[in-house]
């Protein structure tokens, strides 16, 4: 197996995540798309770490996880607040601000 395959897999996962962000209406799902992108990144990190033979990449993956967790905390708080106000988690409903 070539390293390329792993990288391609990571890229595909990343693209799926990005597509999720672009296509899904539910804010939670959109956010899940972002998480998928971050995890694709993690895959790339560990792949490259293995290729280069150093641990940096793996450590970086942990950092990304932590950051993702932090994002979840803030993100869910915001999304829930909006949900409580509007009874909807659709990102298409929040468009008072435009133009």
């Amino acid at each position: 197996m070539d390293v390329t395959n792993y990288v391609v897999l990571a890229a595909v996962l990343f693209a799926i995540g990005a597509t999720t962000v672009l296509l899904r209406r539910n804010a939670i799902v959109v956010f899940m798309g972002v998480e998928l992108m971050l995890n694709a990144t993690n895959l790339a990190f560990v792949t490259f770490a293995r290729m280069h033979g150093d641990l940096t990449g793996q450590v970086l993956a942990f950092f990304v996880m932590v950051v993702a967790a932090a994002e979840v905390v803030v993100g869910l708080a915001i999304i829930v607040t909006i949900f409580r106000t509007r009874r909807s988690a659709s990102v298409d409903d929040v468009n008072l601000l435009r133009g």
Partner: protein
Amino acid sequence: MNDVIGLAPWLVGFPLIGAAVLLLGGRATDRWGHWLGVAASAASAVVAFILMFRMIGTPPEERAVDHGLWTWLSAGGLDVDLGLRLDPLSLTFVMLVTFVGTLIHVYSVAYMDHDVDRRRFFAYLNLFVAAMLTLVLADSYLLLFVGWEGVGVASYLLIGFWDTGRPSARENAVAAKKAFVMNRVGDMGLIAAMAILFATVGSVSFADVLPAAGGLSETTATAVGLCLLLAACGKSAQFPLQAWLGDAMAGPTPVSALIHAATMVTAGVYLMVRSGPILEAAPTAQLVVVVVGAVTLLFGAVVGTAKDDIKKALAASTMSQIGYMMLAAGLGPAGYAFAIFHLLTHGFFKAGLFLGAGSVMHAMGDQTDMRRFGGLSRFLPITWITMGLGWLAILGIPPFSGFWSKDGIIEAAFVPVDGQPWRAWVFGSVAVLGAAITAFYMTRLFFMTFGGRRPRWTENQHPHEGSPLMWWPLVFLGVGSAALGAVLGIGGTFTTWLEPVVGHAEHHEPVLPVPAIITVTLVLVVLGAALAFRMYAVALVPEEAPRGSFLTRAARKDLYQDAANETLVVLPAHGVARLVQVGDRDVVDRGWGVLPLAVSWFGAMFRKAQTGYVRSYAAGMAGGVLVIAVVAWLVIQLGGGLGGAQ
């Protein structure tokens, strides 16, 4: 000469101070202002006489004196001193202007007696005298131009003197503006001439330019000559810039006498004579000058035959007479002296005629229509006699002054130039024909006014002579009309007097013997006068003008000059102006206005992209990543960067 030259600036100074005091003094000077005006003019006249006597006592070759005052402008290679040139030519003019001018000032004291703005009138008159003297005394074209436009302004102010408070006020103002603008058209020529002279000779002063004129290429000389002619046409109401003169009669009659008969309008002739050396270097230009003179001569004469307004008839006559002068000025040294001579005699008799006309109008309640005159000789004897002298003078009946000067011009016109006899025949004939027509219309004018068996007055007219202040000037001018020609003409006194300036003219034989010319001319003049006498003194003059022949109607309308100007100049110019106006509004201004509109339009377009939907924003970002990728790819494909330093 040099001991009195210091007085020369006062020639201009007195009237200038007079004008300044009267204008700035305002109403405070109302009571005595007119006398100050007279005094200023008279003081100038006294200085002129002193200078005149000293000059006569000076040997002819020392008579031309340049008197520099101060450096006027000196920059960029153009050095012009503000200086006066005193020589027989300018002094002749000075005499005419100050003497006739003073007479007219005196006349005006009475004529304008009832006008609330008499002070202002005298201020303008003084201003005119100062400007006119500047014009003739200038030692450079540039200073001449100052006087040239100065008289234009004075003329403007005086034509439009009654520009408010009368029914005709607006017309008077329009006439004034017309005069000034048409003069300016001519002035373009003077500016262009100066430009060419500075570019070729490097100076605009007479002392440098005139001696160098012989060295100019013919093209240059022709260009300068024609430009100067344009200027002269404007100022002297010569064809094709003649249209303003008739309208200028809107001004008070003394103004017509002084400015639009005796002095200002002849400035063009002065310019031609002064620039003689340049014209002599340009035969084509000379020919054009002669042609212009001849055309105007006939034009004015024809118009004069049909006018019923006494002042307009005289104005047409003036135009015609200046045509004679212009014709003479185009004939070279042989004609210069006669041009100036005629200018001088014309100044006297035409001023006399105008003041006479003013006297008639004064008597007839400002009526100017000759068809409402008639039989005035009994009521206005002094006016009748003095105008009669002027009438004889302009007809050129010997020994009255017009004969001496006009006959000289007719003779000179018959002299072949460069072996081209056709010119002699053509211009000679025109001159003679003009004399005949002149006789007709002046006789018509004279008898319509004074003759006739039955007055055709309007109601309630009690004509009587004005105060002595009005008729004494008439007497002086009448005497001048009668005698001046003989005094200066016999023995060629005047020709000799001008010789230091215009040069000695070789005597050439005309194509006809001189006695024959004189005879033919006189016969035609008498015929013309007799015809007019029959039609306007013997026959009854209708109070309303008959419809008349086509030619009469055309002449009454100044040979359609205004219509022609309207069609050929004003309408196209107005069209261009409209075009520019519309273009500025709809193309230039709106064109700039498109920019903000375009920005707003694009703004509104781009604004739509800001939909408010998070997903579309994210799509935009994703698209942006693609765009960036494409840009990066293109850079590789196209090779090379953006002209950056690296």
